[in-house]
């Protein structure tokens, strides 16, 4: 087995690196920069039951070491994604993870069930944590019983392993993680963005049209690491970690904190080749810190306690 290989429910990853949902579209744009077969997997942009236009603009703002976004889950809807986007990704030798979103339990169920109609999606990432959708997305992600309920329903509707994407906008992340684990989640994905705001001085108003946006990028990495480290001590299911990763050292930090694989989001915007470059560096970085493989590093910081 190659030293970068990781096996997770539904996902045999040749390396633990994947672009994060919403930061890579459906891969087409980035396929002009490198061969996507190099990736372990790709996490597609959120899918909802029908097409969504999303929020008014401006939808993004730059912050110190990061950015805010309030895209509002713009996507063509699950059917169009299966018809037009999944076949494109299926050409590449990598796993495909679909990000499932919705405003109601029924919508989540519908989207999850619809993904059963394709063989080219290997796992679901259940997005109960998008902070930019007003109808209810946020409640699912911050209320343990709601999170458990939607997890259970999606598990029943789908043939695929389900990774529940946790929101960091909670006081107790461990309770959330345990709730979705008990509800049948096959894995966790963490973290989504932290709700923030920027005031535009010339207009003296919030810069983002949605007013609040989700903070991502290097600024949130310590929060992600802390949350993964805490959760790892209390759950058995694997964690896909994300939040501010921009180099191979960051990846190792996530592995040590307890992530089994990682996703790279915002860093794709600064450097469209970032995932490819991290994959090239990862072996040497592991070696430098005395690890023979990715598997050996997972959770080491937790076990060292």
């Amino acid at each position: 087995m190659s030293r970068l290989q990781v096996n997770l429910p539904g996902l045999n990853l040749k390396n633990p690196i994947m672009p994060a949902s919403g930061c890579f579209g459906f891969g087409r744009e980035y396929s002009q920069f490198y061969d996507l077969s190099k990736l372990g997997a790709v996490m597609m942009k959120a899918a909802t039951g029908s097409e969504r236009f999303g929020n008014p603009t401006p939808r993004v703002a730059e912050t110190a070491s990061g950015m805010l976004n309030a895209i509002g889950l713009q996507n063509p809807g699950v059917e169009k994604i299966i018809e037009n986007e999944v076949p494109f990704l299926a050409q590449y030798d990598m796993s495909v993870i679909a990000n499932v979103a919705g405003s109601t339990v029924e919508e989540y169920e519908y989207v999850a069930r619809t993904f059963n109609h394709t063989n080219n999606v290997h796992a679901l990432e259940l997005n109960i944590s998008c902070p930019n959708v007003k109808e209810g997305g946020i409640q699912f992600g911050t209320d343990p019983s709601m999170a458990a309920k939607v997890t259970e329903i999606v598990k029943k509707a789908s043939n695929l392993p389900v990774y529940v994407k946790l929101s960091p906008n909670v006081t107790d992340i461990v309770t959330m993680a345990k709730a979705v684990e008990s509800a049948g989640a096959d894995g966790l994905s963490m973290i989504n963005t932290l709700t923030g705001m920027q005031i535009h001085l010339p207009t003296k108003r919030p810069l983002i049209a949605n007013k609040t946006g989700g903070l991502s990028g290097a600024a949130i990495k310590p929060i992600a690491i802390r949350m993964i480290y805490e959760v790892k001590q209390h759950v058995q299911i694997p964690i896909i970690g994300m939040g501010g990763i921009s180099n191979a050292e960051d990846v190792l930090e996530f592995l040590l904190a307890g992530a089994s694989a990682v996703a790279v989001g915002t860093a794709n915007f600064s450097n469209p080749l970032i995932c490819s470059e991290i994959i090239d560096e990862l072996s040497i970085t592991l070696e430098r810190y005395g690890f023979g493989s990715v598997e050996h590093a997972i959770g080491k910081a937790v076990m060292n306690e």
Partner: protein
Amino acid sequence: MIRKESMKIVSTKEIAKETVEMVLKNSYISENAIPGQFLHILLDGHTLRRPISIADVDKENEMVTILFKKLGFGTEKLSESKVGDVLNVLGPSGNGFEISLEGIHTVLLIGGGIGVPPMYYLGKSLAKQNMNVISVLGFQSKEHVFYEERFQQFSKTYVVTNDGSYGDKGFVTNVIPKVGEFDRFYSCGPLPMLKAITNELFEKEGFISLEERMGCGVGACFACVVPTNTEKGYKKICSDGPVFDAREVIL
């Protein structure tokens, strides 16, 4: 196709108030850029790249000119870069003004402030294709005016300043009625200006270049969308645009 490229600064100079002209060397981008496309420039310590229009290209010498206004942290930092420094750039980005000129004889270019730069390379290219070019350039005041003589080399040029300190007083829309007949217009500038122009020139065929805050700049993140009256209902400014048919976008 967009590529990540290194562009070496060959010259940099302040040509008007808070306005910098920078010449960059790169063979791939100079060879492939068309008018209306932009560079997406990464500055040290910043997460998001800055979109700046390609204002001129010299293919023979592999040079690309940009003109930008110092407006915030990024453009301020860019202005402090020195000759010999190397910029990290994605480009050429977006869809430019590559449109058939069949049946077109006279074109009107309307640039407002920092929307003037893309009009320069466009106008120069159109004049080379024997188009009769008229330019209307709007600036805040006299000290902001740039490139007037350059536009005069290929077009009849009108300058207007908001405060009347140079040229006509007012807005570009005050001048348009007196430029005479034209078959098509091209415009780039602040949103209120584009709104006024597209309303006023609704009868005419026109193409406008839009600005919006961008995330990825390659069409993946859906940050910079604009509503359209096309079937899809929206377009992405960074990759479908920044140039659009004036009648398809809802401003």
